[in-house]
């Protein structure tokens, strides 16, 4: 599903966020991306979503070298991936329903299908009764779940999440992780960046560990 071959990412100004990173994530796998803050977790996810481009090396998603995609091919690539952001990136003044529906609107589904899939996604994260609430009126955990519902609404085969439990207490964090596990169980390849060690100890999955932009542990493929 995802393959990195000697990928280096150097930002403008010279900071090297990733150095010669090689890794592979198989179809249907569930893996954590760990490491101290600044280790390069976010950069690695950004490369997958083509928010950043590699300086050197190959990034392959479903066998396609995405570093070669032209700017106008980027949107199509992003539509295939479900992304959960650390800061949610929700539209603050729109109800939960609109937020979850957005990727479906972008993908061009008709109105009925949008409503059906949006409600299904909200149902999966347990927020069906909050569809008219704006993020302002939702708790942090609920906001995060809206973000997850949005990421899975268009049923992507790949789900990536950047610190999805960053601001949550342990109990809520475990809830969120169980949500991701449920999606993984139906075949969605899932990669979650987190530095929440307590949480990781409760979950027995592959861990890819980064330190200073290099992979120091590939983890065991589960």
């Amino acid at each position: 599903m995802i393959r990195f071959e000697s990928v280096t990412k150097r930002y403008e100004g010279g900071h090297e966020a990733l150095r010669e990173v090689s890794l592979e994530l198989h179809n249907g796998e569930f893996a954590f991306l760990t490491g101290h803050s600044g280790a390069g977790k976010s950069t690695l996810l950004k490369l997958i979503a083509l928010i950043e481009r590699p300086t050197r090396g190959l990034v392959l998603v479903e066998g396609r070298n995405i570093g070669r995609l032209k700017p106008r091919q980027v949107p199509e690539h992003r539509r295939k991936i479900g992304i959960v952001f650390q800061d949610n990136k929700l539209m603050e003044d729109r109800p939960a329903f609109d937020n979850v529906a957005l990727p479906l609107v972008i993908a061009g589904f008709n109105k009925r299908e949008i409503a059906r899939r949006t409600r299904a996604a909200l149902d999966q994260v347990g927020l069906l009764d909050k569809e008219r609430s704006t993020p302002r009126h939702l708790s942090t955990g609920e906001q995060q779940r809206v973000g997850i519902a949005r990421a899975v609404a268009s049923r992507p085969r790949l789900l990536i999440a950047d610190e999805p439990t960053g601001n949550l207490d342990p109990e809520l964090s475990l809830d969120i992780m169980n949500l991701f596990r449920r999606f993984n169980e139906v075949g969605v390849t899932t990669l979650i960046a987190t530095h929440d060690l307590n949480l990781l100890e409760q979950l027995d999955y592959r861990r890819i560990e980064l330190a200073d932009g290099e992979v120091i542990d590939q983890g065991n493929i589960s």
Partner: protein
Amino acid sequence: MKTLTHYLSLHLRNCATALADLLAQPVATGLTVAVIGVALVLPASLHLLVQNGRVVVGGWESVRDFSVYLKIGTALENATAIADDLAAREIIDSVEVIPADDALEQFRSGFGVSELLDSMNSNPLPHTLVARPAEVATSAALTALEQEIRALPGVDQVRIDTEWVARLNAILDFLRRGVWIAAVMLVGAVIVTVGNTIRLDIQNRRDEIEICKLLGASNGFVRRPFLYIGLWYGVIGGIVALLLLGAGYLLLAPPVQRLTGLYGGGLELLGLDWVTLVAVLAAGILCGWGGAWSAVSRHLAAIEPK
């Protein structure tokens, strides 16, 4: 087929959403639309003014008659003889003789100066010939004819009144060019106005645009709502301009009617014709769309998720 229907329904939705967005902010929208309306109404009303001027002058252009004033004391028989001489020329269609007595009578009844005339011992007016040139007569030929007639015995003055008509025409041509210049400048102003409004709109919705791009929205998807907003600005601005033109017409028609009544009538103020109506609306739409396009192409590309 399915994709086409889908594409159309997507545009329709964008179009409706854009209008709803505008109507949700009546004050801001009203101000922008008023600026567009006024900017469009200026060249349009100038154009109508020139148009009306041309009709008035056109009415006078056919009046190419010229007058030949004979010397005071010329016998009426001599006047008739000169008239016959003129009428015999190919360049002249017809000649009418206005005897001095008739002219005096006309003058007396028409201008309210009978007392002044009564105090005079003799008729101060000469016999007059009014000649109508043939259609084919060129102005050069008429000028030559004027010289010739002036030299005839008994002729005092020859007056060809078509010159000022030509001058007025020249003024109208000048004004017409002025309309074009005004139109180009004001269209530019509208494009800048819409562009700036859309630019602010883009800034206000920066987060939303960034989120859309993160979720895989194409540039077209992000661009479309703003283009439709620009389009609606243009449409509503155009309608405002047309309403202003209509109001101006209603205000001006009665005094113009009175004025032309004083000049013997026959003139009607030209209202809005279809061509102008369509042109104003089309200009509005083009300006709105153009302004939105210029803003969108400059500012949207700059919003890239980091």
